[in-house]
């Protein structure tokens, strides 16, 4: 018997009891929709978290926090940085060496007290860090400033400081520095303590060569100034202390100097894991987004598997309906089956027709269930943020997804649905093949 004819038979049979078939398809669709919707939550949250992590643009970065030695945890030194640059697949090693005193930058009647740090501009460029505007510094006194530096410069020629800021605590636009800051020379005020314990200050002229890109997160504010290592060296010479600390001058500046925010850049995401492992083998204390991504993936995979299992229970319940429908169908059609067998229908063909029928119900239910699930998912993603925002006054991040239905979830749900329906239809199908021809023809079944 040809497959096409078998399908035709199935369609004809299903038409004989439309209402019963409809209810069974509905039950299967509900089971399938439940599975997809419930499993779409970890899929949605996973997508959101991964997107959030990847948005940080730090996916091929490895942060090195220190090194473990026999004497315990040690901060990273210049020697370590040189060593880190020797590792295979290392594209660049950047660091920040903070000036450990409040530094003030002023121009005309504007000033800003903010953090300053020395960085290796070449390494930053190699690492692929891009600028919002301007160029990387090429001279000793040239610097890079954070994206919000200009907007935070506040006027010094006003007495009413409270008027400068709006209700959000931001400097009002009217009071902001209006001129282009690239190419402008600012005065950097550095403080030191002399041998008598008195504080003295010195102004160092610096020129802004470029502006850093806007931070990845909306809530981040970057006003920090990146200076060259040689300028830091000049400051250290002036203060006589490592990192420009305002303490009694120290003779062993170089020995005590330490670096912060050491970041190792690999060439690609694939190299991060192996490079992280190598650095750990060499006793470095490291953290990378890629490794936390792996942990995140693992947690969500477990959550997905668990919820798919729970969803499968709904389909199993629906399968009872399919079993019932198919058993009824076999009983009702027993005389017809008897006649077909009498004229030469192979039991395998009869079994296949019933299995096709239960699979068809399962597939139809799965397709309808998937459509319903997509609609529920869209609704949930639209409504949940509104509820959270109005009930908890919390603003969810942009692109937040409470529920997501990727193709894999749909394939898994349809496969589960089909398997369960085929299994539930197999017993009635087997029963159909065992129908006694004579009893069936005498309408004794």
């Amino acid at each position: 018997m040809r497959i096409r004819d078998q399908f035709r038979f199935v369609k004809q049979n299903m038409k004989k009891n439309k209402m019963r078939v409809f209810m069974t398809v509905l039950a299967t669709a509900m089971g399938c929709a439940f599975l997809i919707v419930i499993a779409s939550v970890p899929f949605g949250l996973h997508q959101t978290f991964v997107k959030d992590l990847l948005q940080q643009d730090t996916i091929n970065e490895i942060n090195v926090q220190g090194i473990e030695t026999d004497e315990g945890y040690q901060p990273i030194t210049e020697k370590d940085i040189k060593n880190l640059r020797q590792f295979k697949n290392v594209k660049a090693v950047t660091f920040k060496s903070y000036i450990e005193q409040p530094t003030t930058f002023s121009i005309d009647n504007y000033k800003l007290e903010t953090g300053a740090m020395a960085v290796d501009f070449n390494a930053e460029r190699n690492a692929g860090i891009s600028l919002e505007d301007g160029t990387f510094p090429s001279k000793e006194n040239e610097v890079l400033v954070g994206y919000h530096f200009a907007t935070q410069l506040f006027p010094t020629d006003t007495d009413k400081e409270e008027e400068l800021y709006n209700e959000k605590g931001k400097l009002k636009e009217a009071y902001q520095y209006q001129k282009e800051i690239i190419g402008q020379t600012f005065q950097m005020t550095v403080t030191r303590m002399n041998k008598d314990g008195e504080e003295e200050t010195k102004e160092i002229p610096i020129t802004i060569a470029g502006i850093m890109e806007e931070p990845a997160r909306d809530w981040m504010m970057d006003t920090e100034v990146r200076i060259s290592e040689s300028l830091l060296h000049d400051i250290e010479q002036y203060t006589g202390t490592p990192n420009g600390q305002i303490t009694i001058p120290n003779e062993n500046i170089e020995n005590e100097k330490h670096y912060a925010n050491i970041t190792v850049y690999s060439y690609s995401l694939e190299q991060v894991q192996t490079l992280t492992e190598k650095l750990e083998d060499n006793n470095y204390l490291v953290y990378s987004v890629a490794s936390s991504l792996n942990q995140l993936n693992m947690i969500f995979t477990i959550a997905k598997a668990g919820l798919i299992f729970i969803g499968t229970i709904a389909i199993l319940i629906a399968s009872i309906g399919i079993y019932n429908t198919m058993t009824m169908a076999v009983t009702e059609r027993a005389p017809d089956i008897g006649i077909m067998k009498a004229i030469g229908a192979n039991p395998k063909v009869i079994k296949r027709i019933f299995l096709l029928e239960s699979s068809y119900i399962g597939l139809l239910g799965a397709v309808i269930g998937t459509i319903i699930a997509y609609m529920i998912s869209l609704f949930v993603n639209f409504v949940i943020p509104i509820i959270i925002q109005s009930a908890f006054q919390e603003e969810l991040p942009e692109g937040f997804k409470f529920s997501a239905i990727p193709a894999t979830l749909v394939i898994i749900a349809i496969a589960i649905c089909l398997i369960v329906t085929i299994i539930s239809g197999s017993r009635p199908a087997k029963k159909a093949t065992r129908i006694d021809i004579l009893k069936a023809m005498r309408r004794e079944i």
Partner: protein
Amino acid sequence: MIQIKDLSHHFELGKKGSKTSIPVLHNISLTIDKKEIVAIVGKSGSGKSTLLNLIGGFMRPSKGDIWIDETNVTKLNEAGFADFRLNHIGFIFQNFQLIPSMTAYQNVELPLILKGIDERKRTEITKKTLKRVGLLDYHEHYPSELSGGQQQRVSIARALVLNPPIILADEPTGSLDSETEADLLGFIQQLNQELGITFLIITHDDEVASIGNRVIEIRDGWLMEGSVSL
């Protein structure tokens, strides 16, 4: 063509442990040649229908063999016998046994579908067969919309459609009036002469038995010696 050797059959009644064996057929040996019309007669409960059911493979004999066209059909499994039936045997039943939800056309087409014949060829053969039984104009009618004689003709068309060498008929005129019966018997004789189909007809009606080249009587499960030609 059909060779029955030492065929015996008994029914087992009752539950396990207390089963009673009721013998129905005893050592039946019979040969039916090609193109023959053989009528098997006997009283109700004599075992004649059981013999036909055994030949048709609807039940398994307790003992003995049935050979049809060089095939020992008693050795075939259920699926094997189903295929054999489809290709070698046509059936005509007393109650016609048409599928009520199918039209006359669909009922006749069914064996062709089971055999996997393509739709175009199926249409051609089905129409030709319906024409042969004089029911082409009724092809869209459901069995309930046809008279007894017409239903039996649909049933014959279904039995004929795959051109089987043998047709087994169980009381083919049992549900028909005498006029339709005579009509049908004439048609069976015509098919036998024109197509060379072997007919094995189970009947208790002398009129039906009269078209047989041979009439074999079964009495209480025994094949009576010296079965007579009428």
